[in-house]
């Protein structure tokens, strides 16, 4: 029904459109349930974006309030840049995400390849399952566990250091260490999850390719280089494009719970999401929170479009659209 609306102008075009509809009938029906879902759960709520441009005040129900609230243009966005730290925060967000995007591809691909080549298949299962475990622990629980190691007074690490005559490190104020801790912990938590896609992709590769390669006398290394990796390329590319869209978003718990919200670490742990969280604690303006989310989305959108354009220039087949 929705598509019909699209093709209104021009009789000729309409007929073309109708026959197109007819020809794709079966596939259209396959798309329909998903499309309805997106309409209801993703598109209907989009009107909420308007709040970002309003100084939202209540009068009656949501729509009445939305309409009667004062239009404030871009005022709600100002707080994102008003602090003296805006630059540090953006830098942190982008740099961490860049690291996560790169490592989030490289490490899982390596692990997937390793797992795939093991001679003892039984162990593959064991390794893979254990690597999945961290995913199940919330950052709050992880932060408690990490604190048991890093606690400056009673932690395991400092006891070891002191046993060897060292002084002990004040872990939660030493900001030089945290970029590493954060990157390591994020990869530690995500590696099991991220590996799955690549493992499944490898698994889906047609076995005849390898058989042919073996007959031609290709080594394992050559098989990986000329068969596995090229065939993983579509998945890697698509995941990269989507990851780039999240460049301004971050995992809140990783940057808030894990460092125990320690002030001296802010120069290396304050990212956009933690900044927004703290900022909105004081005034609860929903216009500002919408504005912040919209800002993150718009930047993400630009990034994705850019990345997609780049990819489609090089290799159209693997682009998002």
């Amino acid at each position, binding site marked *: 029904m929705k598509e019909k609306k699209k093709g209104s102008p021009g009789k000729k075009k309409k007929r073309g459109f109708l026959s197109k509809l007819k020809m794709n009938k079966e596939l259209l029906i396959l798309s329909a349930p998903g499309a309805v879902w997106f309409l209801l759960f993703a598109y209907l709520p989009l009107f909420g974006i308007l709040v970002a441009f309003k100084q939202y005040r209540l009068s009656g129900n949501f729509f009445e309030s939305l309409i009667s609230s004062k239009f404030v243009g871009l005022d709600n966005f100002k707080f994102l840049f008003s602090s003296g730290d805006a630059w540090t925060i953006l830098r942190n967000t982008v740099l961490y995400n860049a690291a996560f995007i790169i490592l989030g591809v490289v490490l899982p691909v390596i*692990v997937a390849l390793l797992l795939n080549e093991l001679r003892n298949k039984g162990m593959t299962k064991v390794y893979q*399952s254990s*690597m*999945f475990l961290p995913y199940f622990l919330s950052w709050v629980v992880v932060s408690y566990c990490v604190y048991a190691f890093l606690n400056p007074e009673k932690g395991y690490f400092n006891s070891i250091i002191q046993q060897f005559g060292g002084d002990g490190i004040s872990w939660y104020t030493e900001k030089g260490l945290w970029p590493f801790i954060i990157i390591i912990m994020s990869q530690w938590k995500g590696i099991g999850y991220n590996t*799955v896609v690549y493992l499944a992709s490898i698994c889906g590769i047609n076995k005849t390719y390898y058989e042919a390669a073996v007959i031609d006398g290709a080594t394992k290394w050559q098989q990986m280089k000329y068969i596995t990796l090229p065939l993983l390329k579509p998945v890697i590319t698509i995941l990269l494009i989507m990851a780039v869209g999240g460049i301004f978003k971050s995992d809140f718990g990783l940057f808030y719970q894990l460092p125990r919200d320690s002030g001296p670490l802010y120069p290396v742990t304050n990212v956009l999401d933690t900044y927004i969280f703290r900022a909105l604690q004081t005034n609860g303006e929903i216009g500002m929170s919408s504005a912040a989310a919209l800002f993150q*989305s718009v930047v993400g959108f630009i990034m994705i479009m850019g990345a997609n354009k780049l990819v489609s220039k090089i290799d159209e087949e693997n682009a998002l659209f």
Partner: protein
Amino acid sequence: MSKSRRQERAEEKRIKKIEAKECEYNLIKKPTNVLFNAILTVLSFFSLIPFVFVIIISLTDEESLAMNGYRFIPKKWSLHAYQYIVEAGESIIRSYGVTIFVTVVGTLLGLFLIGTYAYALSRKTYAFKSFFTKVITIPMLFSGGMIANYLIITKVLMLKDSVWALILPLAMNSFNVIVMRTFFKTSIPDSVVESAKIDGASEWRLFFQIVIPMALPGLATIGLFLTLGYWNDWFNAMMYIDNQDWIPLQYLLIKIESSIDFLANNKAMMGVEGIQAAANMPKETIKMAIVVISTLPIIFAYPFFQRYFVNGLTIGAVKE
């Protein structure tokens, strides 16, 4: 009958042996294997530690935990936390039930929605491919926010306090659709589709009888993602479920975590009232015990998905 059965089995074994021998030619060298195993062992070890730690803490005596903090070898062990859970019983078992129901129904529904949508997108000949791809790209980034979602789900779709509020919002997302589309694109050769079409197969038959079996690793991956998403979800429960009978397990846990956190951070404002409220909260060991019992079932469910994407375990399924 049993005789022929035995024969069959022997035959199977023989084939397997041959297969294994054949495979031997294409295996990595033994020393390399040792190296790979070593690397993976180290990685697995670090992944296991915190979970083992959580189990140990759940088995630590409450007082000993307060005195000594988190220790790998506690001064005193105790089963108290699990006793508490068994006694609190009812609500936790019910929540278990809710979580399992939501996860199973949601995963199946999600697989259907994602599978059909992504398959259509993966078809080169589909005239509306680009339109429907654009349809899912926008929501990948833009969302109306918490308040608009709440309004749609409670006021338009009337799902407040309904189990569907836990299922429907998570059934689909753009990320999964696109990953699934890529799986279809890479694992289903065009030739298969074309020859089926020439044979006069309808899209339905093509999809359900030919494509699905070939895309099992991909479907298992998305199925796993959906399962995990449902299992770990608490946000929708917090937003849309007031009825205590429909609270999933994960929200029970998160509620405790966030309450403890809140009470600890607002002591100055709440004064002694905060301390009193905190005294009524379940203790640390119980929290960890809930982490353990909420994670175990999913760990056991994991191998079910795993066999579809760990090579060597699924030769049969993929070769078909």
